């Protein structure tokens, strides 16, 4: 797996995949996609980068430990539920905020989106931490 071609391409490939994963995450509310599948794509990007560049390099690039990222995901998802506390609605009610942009288009912000971002982070964190642990095991052998 450690060919020159792979090592050269992997960083660009990983960057593209992370970008695509964000796209999949954001279109998820009304079209196929969403936090879970987006998270899987991003986690595979991290895994590919780990195979090519080594796990230490990936951990340095991620800054935060993957499990901490997953923790942030759970936190954001819970916060999305707590938003409805302020409008006297039950837990987890979907709340929407439509912002008018200067060119006339609308930007829709919502608690389901915040929840989905939480799911995304949980999946990225959990899967990539498993992947990195497995790759680390291989390196030390």
């Amino acid at each position: 797996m450690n060919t020159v071609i792979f090592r050269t391409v992997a960083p660009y490939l990983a960057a593209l995949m992370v970008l695509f994963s964000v796209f999949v995450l954001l279109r998820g509310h009304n079209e196929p996609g969403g936090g879970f599948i987006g998270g899987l794509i991003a986690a595979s990007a991290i895994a590919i980068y780990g195979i090519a560049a080594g796990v230490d390099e990936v951990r340095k690039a991620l800054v935060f430990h993957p499990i901490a990222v997953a923790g942030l995901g759970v936190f954001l998802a819970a916060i999305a539920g707590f938003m409805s506390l302020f409008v006297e609605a039950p837990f987890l009610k979907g709340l929407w905020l439509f912002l008018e942009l200067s060119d006339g288009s609308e930007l829709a912000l919502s608690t389901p989106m915040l929840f989905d971002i939480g799911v995304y982070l949980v999946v990225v964190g959990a899967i990539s931490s498993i992947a990195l642990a497995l790759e680390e095991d291989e390196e030390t052998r």
Partner: protein
Amino acid sequence: MAGSASTPKNLDLPPAMIEGVTSVADWVIVWPIALPMLGAAVLLMARKRPEWQAPFAFVILLATLVANFMLYMRVQAEGPLTMTMGNWLPPYGISLTADALSALFSLVSAFILLIVVLFVQSEVETRENKYGYHSLLLLLLTGVSGGFLTGDLFNLYVWFEVMLIASFGLLIIGGRKIQLDGAVKYGFLNFLATTFFLIAIGFLYGLVGTLNMADIALKAPQVESGAIYAVAALFFLAFAMKGAAFPLNAWLPASYHAPDPAVSAVFAGLLTKVGVYALVRTHLLLIPQSHAQLQLVMEVVAAFTLILAPLGAMAQTNARRALGFLVVGGIGAMLAGLAIGSPTGVFGLAAYAVNSMLVMTALYLVVGLVERMGGTSDIRKLGGLYRANSWLSILFIVLVFAVAGLPPFLGFWPKMILVQAGVEVGNFWLVAFILLNSILTSIAGTRLWAHIFWRDGREGANSEQINERIRPLTTRAKVWGLLPAGALVAFIVVAGLVPQPLFKAGATAAFAIYEPAEYVGSVFGSLSAAEE
């Protein structure tokens, strides 16, 4: 459901969303689940700060306990409380429903976890802290409280999974060989039970077309097909496995001795009781007609569990494995209450569950301290602990009396109610088994006490010589270990001497199970009012 897809303008669908505002006071049912989950997430993020973990977990647990207490008081005063997630109307939205039974169990769980988190401070190394010990404990409480408070059958499955994952993590923290061995047995049988549960949910959905518990309670009694009994039998199999009833109890003593004593204490206190709770919920509230069909099976399972568990405890040389069998014996007593199936029986079951949660947790904590002093949990190598620490021996013998059900300790009262329930329905042989269980349990418990504390030294020829391997407890272990365990035992003693609160709690819990109209009303209150 008038209107068709081709004429969207003339749709006359009933409203799908809740109208009107939800009082912030109703959130009291969300906090017991959401707070520990939020706390677990924050602790995961703060994994590089081991010194923050314990204080933060303690604060979160204190807040959870207060929330649970408020929920309990509210349910006691006003009856079942429901909140349906996301503003959807039930049964479309997932409901959280607390009645007296679930609020009581959730309250006791939070109390136990608070004590255990204090106890943990006497032993956890920072390395284990880093691997998320405290966040897993909080996550476990999330799953347990969620299981108790949910009003949706599939959601109950999800909370079982949360519980399973958290307990799996706690079981293998430390990574010793024995822990992995225990985790495989624990994990395999629990996954199997969860699968049976899921299959049963699928069948039930096919029969009644809903997963909301209140909705099932309305629709399942009208199902004429015999398939509903197959569903009930599957539920019984799955939850009896989760609750470690005979003959599916093997996983419990095989795994509970493996992890840290504090972790075993939480497991013994909380996990099996969720299975028992689910049994009560499914067989007495959701599919009440199945109880008569399965009664004989329940009685036989309860009787065997009652007898074989204390016999198993007598045969053990590992103190914590023996305690595992005593946990199973308690499950037998609760199953006897379920098998009797009268309001008095459920009263006894609820009271016994509270007793078992408190007493088994305390027993594991005390044995954890014994292990710290003796360096082993093998009772053949222990001995002479009375001389070394008489306080510990007093705590242990009090707990043995409580678990066996000797008056005036806490375990006596639930057993008395169970016996009374059995006599009321004329089920004398089950009563005999309950009493026999008490005798055998007291033999098994006092055997442990005699071996660990009473004799001077180790087993065999050395038993007259003083055991020199005993190390006294460190100051840290005394402050954080002996004090929380002692406080819990003191609480148990006081609760045994003043049993009225337990009676009241158990009786209202049983009443709640036999008043499905109130349960259903709290979920569909607004809807049924609109239909009438």
